[in-house]
């Protein structure tokens, strides 16, 4: 399938694609400023250490070195920042908290000089006791990750539990069940591994500062920098070139404040481009230990879900506590369950700060809960698909009593997946099948401004603060403007990523942009249309009520004119343009457990068929089916790309990815050699994606957010298929050959699944 026009529901070639296949697209590391210095971070080779002394003399003696910055060179107390809790210092103060926590930064004329000097900064340190696992962090005598001084008034301040979230309804204790299934599950620590390493550039800019970053939320970064530097927002210009992959890892400020201080101190532009190894030490997904107790009636109805999830976050909170809260919240799944109790804890540790990562805390609990349901189905002698269908919420059901009601015909999605995998057909000998459902709350609040300029020739410029990090937001927003204003798609330019030019947008996350920014752009286009209607009424001497504008045309009582004709006549000889503004708000709901109900739910069903090599434990995904309810696909090809990409990314944490630590808290598999992600040789033999479209979403033309759904439930579907094929039960990820092989040796006598 290639381009079939550019309208809504067509799949034109990606806006910005030409620059990406010719090498012309400038990612942050490709931005070259004259006279820029190169920065390099200095770390210590353990997780937690008390910094006794830093000797910078040898480093400063390296030719070309202009600055070696430590905490002592910064305003005191050293500024701290963080989207939820301002706990992360610009640079480590007195103590490192994790392997990779920088204690100094060098700026030099060349990259070589910066690297050489970084190696010559002598740090005297004392290694301190540290915690790297949930169990160690929760032990009664565990060393504290955060100084209680940073948590005033917090009753948990003398523990490593940063926060505890309780959500539920009904009475779990009183719920009656014929069968109770209770197990422990674990989810590993994995990293985003965007192929573009994070990069940061800062330069003095008049009486302010300009900062380039591969950041997903430029406006949020602008606020952080303005506060830390004591500048008005108008003097902090954040430039955010389209990131080379974000996946959540580029949402929040990391080293931008540090690079800004280096630039202000040297009076020169300073660039810091992380190595891949350093990105492993900058961002990761929270690991989790999850206990699930599921009660069921003999007919397969779920009587209760009792879930305890301990998420292992890092040394600074970043957005991790929100991940824990929002990710665990829909943990009982898309089912109508009378009694649910979910207790989720945010457990600090001396490890890389965990942050948002595609799925935002949902894949962890989903892995445990969906696996537990598969177990329950087997014990009840019920088809796992049937068990899910018996419990699945129907449109309009208040399946989470205090939230948005079920907003899709989810059974269609499930049945489509079952049909595509051939669920009812006999499983080939030696193969096994598994199925799982995933659900995720969309954005709970939002604020997206946009501006649309209809230029004198009918071409269009859209200003939108969304980041196009690969999801294709530029294309979708351009399609909306083209549709509404009647311009060819290649006459639409979308300007993003510059806080001095583009209006405010809260963030690019939670698969929100098509819905929230999409609606904002739609409203800006409608604002332009309203002005065009006034123009047409004036030019043609008719009443405003007799004029309507839609889909690129102005409709008058006696005829229909292309927008551009009305525009030219209306602007007259002096020319000019029509400017429209749009705002899309989703307000906070203070009483809601998440501060707001879901704008939409992402819903996915994944079904897989596997074979397992009994000799090696290696899993082959023979078929992988992923079906998502997307409301309406504005660009079906991009939807397919996102869904299939998410599915394969999900195979990463399912089959191979995990950090390995040593006793000092060092990550032993930093970088691409020892940390494996899926390659073209790790693909399912057959991967099929499909979508359900009922135009029932809150976004433009009935769209919903998508792009995380297909990752949510990959792991439980694969593990169920492995169990179906071999009888081996595994409750820890990843399902590496070694782990599968051990499970094969330990498996109980094979009990075939009987489907009545």
């Amino acid at each position: 399938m290639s381009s079939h026009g550019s309208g809504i529901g067509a799949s034109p070639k990606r806006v910005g694609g030409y620059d990406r296949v010719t090498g012309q697209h400038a990612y942050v590391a490709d931005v070259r400023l004259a006279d820029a210095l190169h920065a390099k971070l200095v770390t210590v080779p353990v997780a937690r250490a008390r910094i006794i002394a830093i000797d910078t003399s040898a480093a400063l003696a390296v030719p070309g070195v202009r600055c070696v910055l430590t905490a002592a060179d910064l305003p005191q107390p050293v500024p701290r920042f963080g989207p939820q809790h301002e706990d992360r210092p610009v640079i480590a103060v007195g103590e490192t908290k994790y392997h990779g926590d920088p204690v100094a930064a060098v700026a030099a004329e060349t990259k070589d000089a910066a690297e050489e000097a970084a190696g010559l900064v002598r740090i005297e340190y004392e290694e301190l006791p540290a915690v790297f696992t949930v169990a160690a962090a929760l032990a009664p005598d565990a060393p504290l990750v955060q100084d209680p001084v940073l948590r005033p008034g917090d009753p948990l301040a003398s523990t490593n539990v940063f926060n505890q979230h309780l959500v539920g309804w009904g009475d779990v204790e009183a719920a009656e069940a014929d069968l109770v299934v209770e197990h422990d599950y674990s989810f590993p620590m994995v990293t985003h591994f965007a192929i573009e390493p994070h990069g940061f550039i800062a330069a003095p800019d008049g009486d302010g500062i300009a900062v380039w970053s591969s950041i997903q939320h430029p406006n949020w970064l602008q606020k952080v920098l303005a506060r830390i530097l004591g500048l008005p927002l108008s003097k902090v210009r954040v430039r955010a070139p389209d990131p080379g992959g974000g996946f959540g890892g580029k949402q929040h400020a990391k080293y931008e404040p540090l690079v800004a201080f280096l630039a202000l101190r040297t009076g020169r532009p300073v660039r810091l481009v992380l190595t891949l190894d350093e990105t492993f030490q900058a961002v990761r997904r929270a690991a989790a230990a999850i206990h699930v107790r599921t009660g069921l009636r003999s007919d397969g109805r779920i009587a209760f879900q009792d879930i305890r999830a301990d998420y292992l976050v890092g040394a600074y909170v970043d957005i991790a506590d929100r991940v824990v809260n929002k990710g665990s919240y829909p943990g009982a799944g898309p089912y109508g369950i009378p009694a649910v109790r979910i207790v989720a804890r945010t457990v600090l540790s001396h490890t890389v700060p965990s942050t948002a990562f595609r799925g935002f805390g949902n894949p962890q609990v989903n892995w445990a809960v969906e696996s537990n349901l598969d177990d329950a189905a087997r014990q009840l002698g019920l088809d796992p698909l049937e068990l899910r269908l018996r419990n699945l919420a129907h449109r309009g059901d208040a399946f989470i009593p205090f939230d948005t009601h079920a907003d899709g015909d989810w059974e269609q999605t499930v049945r489509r997946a079952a049909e595509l995998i051939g669920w009812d057909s006999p499983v080939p000998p030696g193969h096994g099948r598994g199925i799982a459902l995933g659900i995720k709350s969309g954005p709970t609040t939002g604020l997206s401004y946009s501006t649309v300029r209809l230029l004198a020739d009918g071409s269009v410029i859209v200003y939108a603060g969304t980041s196009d990090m690969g999801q294709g937001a530029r294309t979708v927003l351009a399609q909306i403007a083209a549709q509404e204003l009647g311009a060819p798609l290649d006459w639409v330019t979308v300007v993003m990523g510059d806080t001095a030019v583009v209006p405010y947008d809260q963030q690019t996350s939670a698969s929100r942009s098509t819905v929230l920014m999409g609606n904002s752009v739609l409203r800006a286009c409608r604002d332009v249309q309203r002005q065009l209607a006034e123009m047409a009424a004036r030019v043609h001497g008719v009443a405003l009520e007799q004029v309507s504008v839609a889909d690129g045309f102005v409709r008058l009582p006696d005829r229909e004119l292309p927008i551009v004709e009305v525009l030219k006549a209306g602007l007259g000889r002096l020319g000019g343009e029509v400017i429209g503004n749009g705002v899309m708000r989703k307000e906070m709901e203070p009483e809601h457990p998440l501060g707001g109900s879901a704008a939409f739910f992402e819903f996915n069903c994944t079904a897989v068929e596997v074979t397992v090599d009994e000799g090696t434990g290696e899993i082959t995904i023979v078929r992988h089916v992923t079906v998502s309810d997307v409301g309406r696909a504005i660009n079906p090809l991009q939807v397919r790309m996102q869904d299939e990409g998410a599915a394969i990314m999900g195979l990463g944490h399912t089959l191979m990815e995990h950090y390995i630590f040593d006793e000092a808290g060092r990550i032993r598999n930093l970088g691409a050699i020892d940390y494996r992600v899926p390659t073209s040789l790790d693909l399912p033999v057959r991967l099929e994606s499909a979508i359900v479209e009922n135009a029932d979403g809150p976004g433009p033309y009935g769209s919903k957010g998508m792009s995380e759904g297909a990752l949510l439930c990959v792991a439980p579907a694969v593990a169920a298929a492995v169990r179906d094929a071999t009888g081996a039960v595994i409750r820890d990820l990843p399902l590496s050959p070694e782990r599968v092989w051990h499970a094969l040796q330990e498996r109980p006598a094979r009990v075939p699944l009987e489907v009545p």
Partner: protein
Amino acid sequence: MTTMPSSLPIELTVNGRRRSIEVEVNHTLLDVLRDDLGLAGTKECCDVGECGACTVEVDGRAVNSCLMLAVEADGAAVTTVEGLATDGRLSLLQDEFLAKGAVQCGFCIPGQLMAAHALLAGNAHPSVADVHEALAGNLCRCAGYEQITEAVLAAAAAEAER
């Protein structure tokens, strides 16, 4: 005792253009392309030859330019992603990458294109397995592997029809 020079002159052809430059002896071909020649289309990620973002063609072979010292490229003909289009017109391969939706964030794409270009130069009719094998060293974290493979096969088919 002789002192090792810190830089050496080399001559190479890059995208058909002859270049004579002085390079640091410890700098890789990737460093020189990006930093000295201003050809930023070739991307840097892992620096250990595992991710493929820096793939270029050296004398017709796909090479991880992060693993090749610039002085080793003395006398070589190097093609980078900037050398694929002709007079602003995309090659069949580039065109198919866009048409099939192989490009998401795009950061790995220059490397994918160069690996695919080298594959097609030696194998005009690759199978799916051939493509997967040839591009196995080019990571795509957006995981557009299905679409990348479709694009390479489509480009091969289109070339055969020409």
